[in-house]
């Protein structure tokens, strides 16, 4: 029996004129929820495109375009994925990165070898490694796969992944809706999740700042920062589709969307100017990279430019993690990052 929760709540719901409540409400309705909806819409479009391709009604280029949109939607969402998508290992079902041991390729082939024709249930029961966009990307972009000639082998998997993404994003959206949904938790206080608006705003900022830290990893890992400076191009995110830079841009835009709403709460005008400049600087550096990351890291000539981008992200993270958190009086970390 599912327990019924009775909350003995103290205090009254704050008036909507509270600036933090207004900003958190704007973030919820104008940034977080729309990003989840767009991600779901791009997944629905990917399913239609996959079915069209597998029925020979669409060409491979159209399928790739649809995949890019899903990937972009996911990358934009990462700094905004507070709540359901961040919980229960759901995000692993969308993307498997980093893939240090080429598990995506190995597990996809093993899964397909094990069954003459893959059905949806087999995919649902399988590893998260084969359920997401990373596996989809392997099939569509890897040199070892001739999708046009082997569509019978791979189409059930592609369709299965697209279905899985639609179902997953629909499930996440449903967890945002209703009286106990994430939207309500972020806008009406106190509630079962947050005692007050500061806790909710703090959670949004933690998610966003963690994502900026992840951007550093997505750049730093292929650069070889954890590998004594030896580049690891095939550790780049989305290296097969050569979409790493676009992903970084999409994630940065998601993070920036949070900042754009939060900045009105910041008392220190100089800090506002510095964070604005840090976003602009990082965006410009990303825009200046015309080649895919998988290629850029392989040439020493690019090292300075990549290092400069990394430093820019690092500066952005520090400004938000330390100075912004201090200005807003919001606590960003304790046991979850540093426990025992």
């Amino acid at each position, binding site marked *: *029996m599912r*327990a*019924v*929760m*009775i*909350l*003995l*709540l*103290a205090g009254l719901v704050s008036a909507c004129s509270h600036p933090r409540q207004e900003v958190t409400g704007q973030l919820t309705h104008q940034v977080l929820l729309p990003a989840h909806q767009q991600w779901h819409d791009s997944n629905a479009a990917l399913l239609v495109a996959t079915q069209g391709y597998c029925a020979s009604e669409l060409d491979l280029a159209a399928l790739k375009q649809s995949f890019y949109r899903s990937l972009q939607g996911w990358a934009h969402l990462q700094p905004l994925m507070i709540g359901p998508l961040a*919980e*229960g*290992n*759901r995000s*692993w079902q969308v993307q*498997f990165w980093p893939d240090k041991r080429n598990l995506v390729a190995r597990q996809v082939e093993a899964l397909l070898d094990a069954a003459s024709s893959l059905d949806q249930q087999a995919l649902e029961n399988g*590893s*998260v*490694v084969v359920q997401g966009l990373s596996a989809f990307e392997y099939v569509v972009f890897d040199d070892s796969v001739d999708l046009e000639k082997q569509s019978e082998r791979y189409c059930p998997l592609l369709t299965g992944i697209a279905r899985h993404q639609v179902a997953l994003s629909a499930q996440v959206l449903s967890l945002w809706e209703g009286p106990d949904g994430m939207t309500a938790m972020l806008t009406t206080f*106190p509630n*079962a*999740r*947050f*005692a*007050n608006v500061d*806790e909710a705003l*703090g*959670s949004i900022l933690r998610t966003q700042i963690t994502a900026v830290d992840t951007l550093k990893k997505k750049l730093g890992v292929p650069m070889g920062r954890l590998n004594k400076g030896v580049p690891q191009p095939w550790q780049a995110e989305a290296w097969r589709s050569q979409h790493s830079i676009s992903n970084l841009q999409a994630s940065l835009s998601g993070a920036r969307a949070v900042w754009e709403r939060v900045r009105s709460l910041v008392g220190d005008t100089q800090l506002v100017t510095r964070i604005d400049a840090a976003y602009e600087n990082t965006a410009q550096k990303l825009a200046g990279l015309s080649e895919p990351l998988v290629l850029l890291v392989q040439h020493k000539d690019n090292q300075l430019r990549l290092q400069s981008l990394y430093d820019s992200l690092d500066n952005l993270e520090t400004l938000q993690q330390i100075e912004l958190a201090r200005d807003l009086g919001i*606590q960003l*970390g*304790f*046991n*979850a990052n540093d*426990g*025992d």
Partner: protein
Amino acid sequence: MTLTRRHLLGMGAALGGAAVLGGWALWQGRGGPSPLLLSARNDEAGQHYCAGYFLDGRRAFATPVAERCHDVALHPILPLALFVGRRPSRESYLIDLRDGRVLQTLQSQPQRHFYGHGVFHKEGDWLYATENDLDEPGRGVLGRYRLNRNTLELIHDGEVPTHGVGPHQLAWMPDGESLVVANGGIRTEGSREKKNLDSMAPSLVVMDRHGELHSKETLRHQQSSIRHLAVADDGTVITGQQFQGEAWESVPLLAVKRPDQPYQPFPVSASQLAMMDQYTASIAIHSQRRQVAMTAPRGNRFFVWDLDSAETLVDVPMADCAGVGVVGDGFAVTSGQGRCRYFGYRDGQVTSHWLDLPAGWWDNHLRLR
């Protein structure tokens, strides 16, 4: 055994801490019906504290200390507690619970550091703490300390092996003489850096307090670091693990050792496991209600299950939930980020309310008195 105030006074007198006694009686009166919650805590500037708050929100003390502490070892009789230094701390603090005064800064032995957990023996003369042998990094030892009754000082009086690597939490079995120890299995060398993730050796050990091994059991997943535990009145032990393997793998994170039965996973659903983010922090057992509670700070989730049927009683989000302890019919839960809460479960219903304690910065364990 239920201790009455008359018992306490008598036992205190037997211990000879005359100076303590009057204060103890006075202090008991100050708390009234509200229990005292003891926990290590930080502030936003990063200062570490040994903190004591009555559950109704009144501050008993917040004593600044040099090193961050982890668990609190309560003296069974006297108003004393050792706030144990968190790995790889070289200091622990013996605190007078009446006023928060540091009675002693207990230094670790040379080539040893504290692992964050310790317990007083039921008669109050001995303290046992899990420690790391830095001459043979990771080798677990149980440091033994005698409490000087007159000076109220802990004096190192030897050590015995924990029969495993990287011991973390320990607790008394119902006989009050044998200890169950969670050997986390991770080798560290005076730091928090994990040196042996490919060759970890976690184990759950039951040993007597003099070092004799009674049992040593392991789990199937060698990268499941056994870290936290609680013991029910009937001797049922629940442990919480921290999985050091791949973040996306599904591996049991709770295990149970029931009397006369082998140590084995405690059955929770795959979706609950996924919610824990491979990390469990604090466990408490309500023996009367046969309920076990657990915090998962990385997953921002708090759980209560029926100890016998494993039925889920509470499964709720709670940001950076940290320490948990039994209070009345339920559990008090602290948080590293938000407000502390009370959760209870009775007749199919969860009750919850926020506690009037400072929000955030609470460490992963709490003790109630």
